């Protein structure tokens, strides 16, 4: 009796193992027939001060890959998404290394923030890994080109290439003669506001004061108390700080004295405009993406994001979607060949129309991108960025 039970147990185990082996072989065969998948690695901040942006990056890239039916050049696509961390370059480096060495991705999209990009760029260049950045990298383009060695495709451009023409616009077309500035005291804040000021001065304007707000400043009151009155205030702060500043600026009645212009206005989206309310009406800003852009590709994109995620896409949605589009175009051009140098050249040669406008690359990898000057308007209780001027095909300063 006992022997019979043992025999039955043994038969059951063997049967299960045999079935499992058959399933594995079948799956392996199917995979082999389809071809090795193309692995796209992506990074976005899921934790830390920019934690609200990471899901937008992931959502937009996922949307683009779904539109491509998770295939490119006849090969399946696998997306590996990682948190780039809350501001620790070592964390980002660990995530990137995992993607390169363990996951063996073929291309990387991200990270978002400039310090993280600079931290991982030398490693990616050594590994000959094509990387598409998301947001503008802040820094001198010539110096950064030496660091990136052509492997980092700056699909988000360089901050100064957008802020400089906006500074020119503020002086020459908005007719401001003097300006005060308040910006974050870190690399991006200094680069954006520095190049804005340079553009403003190039048209004959005078910068009366520049204030730099350290990261994590709780109270904006002291900065407001010493603000020098000018024709306008140029402002750039991270999302929570800019909300605090605008509220406290409004409480003091300062909007009546000094209108605000915001270069790189990706720090406030339509949801933030709604939260802040009427004080935002009339703000003039510069940004790479406007949801109201009247192009077929953008209208399709906005409709798709609204349908899938129930939100109006902002700059981070658009730039992430753009990066994924560039990656797919690169793989199409190589017909699925993931050889690093071939892929790099293919991506560098991409010319696309995306929701943000036209995208192309310089030989050094810097993006040639459109930007827009916008004004906040209110209609039927909704707040939105209304495009007032397009600044096409901007290039990094000095490149």
């Amino acid at each position, binding site marked *: 009796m006992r022997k019979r039970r043992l025999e039955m147990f043994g038969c059951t185990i063997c049967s299960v193992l045999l079935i499992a082996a058959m399933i594995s072989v079948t799956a392996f065969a199917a995979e082999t027939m389809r071809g090795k998948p193309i692995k796209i690695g992506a990074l976005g901040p899921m934790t830390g001060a920019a934690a609200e942006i990471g899901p937008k990056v992931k959502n937009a890239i996922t949307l683009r890959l779904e539109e491509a039916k998770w295939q490119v050049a006849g090969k399946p696509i696998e997306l590996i998404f990682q948190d780039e961390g809350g501001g620790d370059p070592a964390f980002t480096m660990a995530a990137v290394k995992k993607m390169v060495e363990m996951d063996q991705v073929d291309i990387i999209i991200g990270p978002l923030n400039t310090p993280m990009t600079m931290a991982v760029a030398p490693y990616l260049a050594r590994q000959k890994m094509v990387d598409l950045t998301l947001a503008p990298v802040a820094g001198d383009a010539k110096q950064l080109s030496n660091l990136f060695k052509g492997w980092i495709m700056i699909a988000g451009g360089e901050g100064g290439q957008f802020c400089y023409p906006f500074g020119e616009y503020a002086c020459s077309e908005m007719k401001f003669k003097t300006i005060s500035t308040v910006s974050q005291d870190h690399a991006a804040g200094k680069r954006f506001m520095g190049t804005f000021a340079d553009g403003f001065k190039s048209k004959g304007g005078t910068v009366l004061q520049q204030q730099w707000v350290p990261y994590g400043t*709780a109270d904006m*009151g002291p900065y407001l108390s010493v603000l020098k009155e000018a024709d306008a205030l140029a402002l750039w702060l991270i*999302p929570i700080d800019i909300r605090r500043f605008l509220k*406290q600026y409004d409480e003091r009645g300062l909007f009546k004295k000094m209108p605000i212009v915001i270069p790189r206005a990706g720090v406030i989206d339509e*949801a*933030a405009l709604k939260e802040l309310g009427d004080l935002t009406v009339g703000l003039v800003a510069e940004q790479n993406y406007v949801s109201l852009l009247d192009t077929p590709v953008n209208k399709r994109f906005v409709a798709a994001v609204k349908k899938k995620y129930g939100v109006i896409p902002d700059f981070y949605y658009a730039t992430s979607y753009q990066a994924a589009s560039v990656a797919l175009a690169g793989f199409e051009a190589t017909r699925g060949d993931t050889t690093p140098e071939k892929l790099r050249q293919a991506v560098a040669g991409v010319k696309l129309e995306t929701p943000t406008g036209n995208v192309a690359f310089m030989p050094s990898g810097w993006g040639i991108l459109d930007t827009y000057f916008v004004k906040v308007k209110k209609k039927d209780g909704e707040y939105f960025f209304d495009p007032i001027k397009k600044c096409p095909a901007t290039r990094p300063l000095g490149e």
Partner: protein
Amino acid sequence: MDVIVQNLLNGISFGTILFLLASGLSISLGLMGILNLAHGAIYMVGGYIGWLLAVKGGVNFWVTVLIAGLATGLLGLIIERGFLRYLYKKRNEQVLLTFGLIYIMTNLTIWIYGAEPRAPFTASFLSGSFHFLGWQYPTARIAIIMIGLALVIGLWWLQDKTRLGAIVRAGMEDKEIVTGLGINMGLVFTVVFFFASFLAGFAGVVGAQLLGVYPDLSLDVLLLALVVVVVGGMGNVRGTLLGSMIIGLIQSFGVALFPELAMFTIYLVMIIILLVRPAGLLGRRVSR
């Protein structure tokens, strides 16, 4: 003159928020010897509850402040009864536990409310500015100063004029003697921790008028609260008040007059005070 007056008021109003935040931490540290690093996270939870009620729900601001305080008081009760009471006199374990609670509460907050930062909010009648002889100053900040003043008086009365206050003061000096007199110190600890957490949540809503709420708020305010407690002295409400006013004023005038040093003026002051008076300006020995 305008710069001086503005920053005097800026410093006092910001210092008031620091006092509201740090007083609970100081009391729990002084009486119970517990270093509750989750105090900043409790502040953040209070702020988010306030945002949910006042902004999304349209609830009266003062009712919101009370409900947020009670909710975080309850949270504190759970933390004390469920975890901390097993870790008295175990400082390393307290630090590890409460630090872990920061991450848990922060991630739960992101899960529930999303990661978007929320702009500062206040009652509609506190929006805008108070006008006086051609000069204007935000009404919300004046309200914060008034609330702080009321709390100072309330805490002074509680500490100096009530039996509970006498027990707390005695407990800070010598717990064993107080226990020997038949006082249930376990119950006192629970009540004090509830009250400290109530204050944190209360401060979260009041402070949201200036700071707003966002996921990283817990660590940002914790650092400030620790600086205040270190400068003023642990376990001493008067010391916490003095420390918070000093830090608030230094922050305001430091930024206005020495902006290049804005990043570390308050830490410089903390280091100097620690060198001169290691227990803080009005510090007492932490109860063992």
